[in-house]
């Protein structure tokens, strides 16, 4: 075992982690621990843009952006946080430009902007051009630019260090975070990082679903670690399904395509979004478009031999727009479906995409241990966190914004906290949990195969807990997940070595996935209403009387099968009263 001592430890090297590192690294001694090599993170898969009311191409202001974000989130958004995000969006984009990000430009040389779902002029009048973009690889350019700036500032990375636990020390004032414990993939060695502050920036957990835009590595590690520590997770039932995944594959096709004018059609060629969202049509928020697509298919108007998808029609955009503004998605359709978007419509269907919920934080990125108290020294930012700026449904582009605004805030807050405090002693045997966990997975205690359990999990989640849910489907999902947890207690891995044991890695990841899937399903069962990304067929309307509040989940005990306690947290309102959500 090895010990290290830093002021700030950041877990994860995607957009939020590296944005935090750029701030923290210039103020305090900082280490970034990452399961993947930097630049491999899934921020790089984001395509369409990052919204900010720059007003470079038409009138816009951050107050409209705030309103759109709150309405888009079906009023479950904490309005103070949304206001901060929309206001700071402008500097967040300008900061990236100054760091070197190659945005597309207007004829005057300013940052160009395009339309995106749910982003409107003057509180819903019409779609507004607010998304700053770099072709359809905006996330790639953000990830590269942030890594480039980490290189510039000499940020210290520990690549392929898989964090499996954090250290919590009990003090007179309550628990304090004092470090993190990592498994080094190259050697199998365990490392304890003693720190004054720790930032989680570990991304989402899309791999609980089968059809997903998420990377194989998005297994909710950070959320899982926090949950196992008895700390809460927030709003986990709200999971976003992106309307336009490549049918059958789930690979993302940006909403920016519709921003540039692409149209969704059913088997009859009808532009069906005109029926569901008469004002902004194909540019309605993702939850509405995804449900509309699912309904078209359920009602028999799906396209293809099995009538199980709809069509994204880009043919009228012309080859030049596709090649210059949407080159990557054009290539994805050609490579993976052998469909050329220039001449044919592309088969698409909703794909599991983004967790609105996560580790609850305040607007400084400090992690909450209950509704009223933070854990000193512990921070979270990006998809793994829930501030909550996305409420029940995130608007497109607001995740790239979230990682930049709240990654920066968490980095500054963690460094300032570290500068103002001394190291608190680590708890006794800080690596004990991780040592036991690794030893258990490697020991012979059963013969269940990790892949079988994971595939069964993903199948039941797709079938029973995706775009539409009912009491029956969710109970089935809960039953399945709990049975899979029992099987997980009897897993075996073939690789018993120490060197790059990715067999072990996948087994550990599956443990987090099972844990988080259960929280999602328990939350979805308890929320007997439909709001944003959570659509209950048996409770089709929003119920503000009973459910205008955040869900908070706590793990009761340490066993994988331990019960989940559900509590609630009030939503913060500033100036927007809930209204019916029409587009």
């Amino acid at each position, binding site marked *: 075992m090895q010990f290290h001592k830093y002021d700030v430890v950041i877990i994860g090297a995607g957009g939020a982690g590296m944005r935090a590192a750029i701030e923290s690294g210039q103020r305090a001694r900082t280490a970034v621990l990452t399961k993947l090599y930097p630049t*491999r993170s899934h921020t790089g898969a984001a395509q369409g843009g990052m919204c900010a009311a720059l007003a470079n191409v038409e009138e816009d202001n951050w107050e409209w952006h705030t309103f759109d974000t709150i309405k888009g989130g079906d009023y479950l958004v904490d309005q103070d946080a949304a206001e901060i995000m929309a206001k700071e969006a402008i500097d967040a984009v300008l900061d990236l430009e100054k760091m070197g990000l190659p945005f597309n430009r207007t004829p005057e040389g300013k940052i160009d902007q395009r339309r995106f779902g749910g982003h409107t002029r003057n509180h819903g009048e019409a779609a507004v051009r607010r998304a700053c973009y770099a072709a359809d690889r905006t996330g790639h350019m953000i990830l590269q630019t942030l890594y480039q700036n980490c290189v510039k500032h000499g940020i210290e990375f520990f690549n392929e260090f898989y964090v499996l636990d954090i250290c919590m020390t009990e003090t007179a004032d309550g628990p304090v975070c004092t470090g993190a414990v990592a498994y080094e993939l190259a050697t199998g060695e365990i490392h304890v990082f003693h720190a004054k502050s720790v930032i989680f920036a570990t991304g989402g957990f899309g791999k609980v679903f089968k059809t997903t835009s998420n990377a194989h590595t998005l297994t909710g590690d950070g959320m899982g670690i926090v949950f196992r520590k008895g700390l809460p997770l927030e709003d986990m039932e709200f999971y976003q399904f992106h309307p336009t995944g490549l049918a059958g594959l789930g690979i993302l096709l940006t909403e920016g395509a519709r921003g540039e004018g692409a149209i969704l059609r059913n088997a009859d060629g009808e532009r069906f979004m005109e029926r569901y969202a008469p004002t902004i049509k194909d540019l309605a928020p993702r939850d509405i478009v995804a449900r509309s697509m699912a309904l078209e298919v359920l009602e028999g108007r799906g396209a293809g031999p099995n009538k199980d998808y709809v069509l994204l029609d880009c043919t009228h955009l012309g080859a030049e727009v596709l090649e210059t503004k949407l080159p990557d998605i054009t290539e994805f359709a050609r490579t993976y479906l052998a469909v050329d978007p220039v001449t044919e419509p592309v088969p698409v269907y909703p794909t599991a995409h983004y967790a609105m919920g996560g580790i609850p934080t305040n607007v400084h990125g400090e992690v909450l241990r209950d509704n009223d108290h933070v854990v000193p020294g512990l921070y979270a930012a990006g998809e793994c966190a829930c501030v909550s700026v996305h409420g029940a449904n995130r608007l497109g582009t607001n995740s790239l914004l979230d990682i930049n605004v709240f990654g920066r805030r968490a980095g500054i807050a963690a460094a300032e906290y570290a500068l103002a405090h001394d190291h608190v002693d680590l708890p006794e045997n800080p690596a004990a949990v991780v040592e036991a966990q690794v030893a258990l997975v490697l020991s012979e205690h059963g013969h269940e195969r990790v892949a079988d359990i994971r595939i069964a999990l993903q199948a039941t989640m797709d079938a029973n807990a995706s775009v539409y849910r009912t009491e029956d489907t969710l109970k089935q999902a809960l039953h399945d997940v709990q049975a899979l947890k029992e099987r997980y207690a009897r897993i075996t891995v073939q690789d018993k070595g120490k060197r790059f044991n990715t067999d072990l890695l996948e087994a550990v990841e599956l443990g987090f996935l099972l844990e988080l899937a259960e929280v999602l399903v328990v939350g979805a069962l308890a929320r007997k209403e439909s709001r944003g990304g959570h659509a209950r067929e048996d409770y089709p309307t929003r119920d503000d009387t009973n459910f205008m509040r955040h869900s908070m989940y706590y793990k009761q005990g340490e066993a994988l099968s331990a019960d989940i306690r559900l509590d609630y947290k009030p939503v913060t309102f500033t100036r927007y009263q809930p209204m019916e959500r029409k587009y």
Partner: protein
Amino acid sequence: MTASTAEQTSSSGSKGSEPPVPEGAITVTVKIRRFNTEFDDEPRWDSFEIPALPSDRVLNLLHYVKWYLDGTLTFRRSCAHGICGSDAMRINGVNRLACKVLLKDLLSAGGKPTTITIEPIKGLPVHKDLLVDMEPFFEAFRAVQPYLINYSPEPTRERLQSAADRERFDDTTKCILCACCTTSCPVYWTDGSYFGPAAIVNAHRFIFDSRDEGAEERLDILSDKEGVWRCRTTFNCTDACPRGIQVTKAIQEVKRALLFKRV
């Protein structure tokens, strides 16, 4: 909608059984270069017979081996659609991303049996099977100052850049640092101290960015004996790039900038 049970929607087999073979699958042989530096003295070849669909990516075949046949098979992967750059490997002798090559493009003609050969990328030390040490590759990247250098006072708004100036370096902004180009380069194979194509591509991305003022420093670095002059224009790198970057052309443009001292 009605509930579907896990039993209906998945194979819940115990260890040893393999998942049901999908309709339309064909059997292919996947021959993989194996080497675990923890236990093995030297590399060997392992072959696996796998049922697969023509639309499967090579990555699917590797997952099949890892998940059902041999859990010790080791490779990197993440996004699975050619964006993260994790799964560069030598597939039938050429550098490709395993998630971007479909089986249908590797099938033998006339329905003859198909064998797919998979090796680690060359020129970087192998750690385990298809997983290599990426550190020398990233070291070369970091050595070319791959970030915007600008000494002028920052404007309050964005720096202006014409669409034409932005277009000038568009191609090289696509790089995902997968190392397909660098590890396809014969010069890099014989002499690992050469920066390699990827590092030069990333230098190009800044040298030709109108907002950047560090071209001179970078060109100094690249005119070093391990720099651009080592390139012998074999075009392997351009052929290997999964992002379609004109890598050799970018290297030529950097050479020209050095010769004529202007960008």
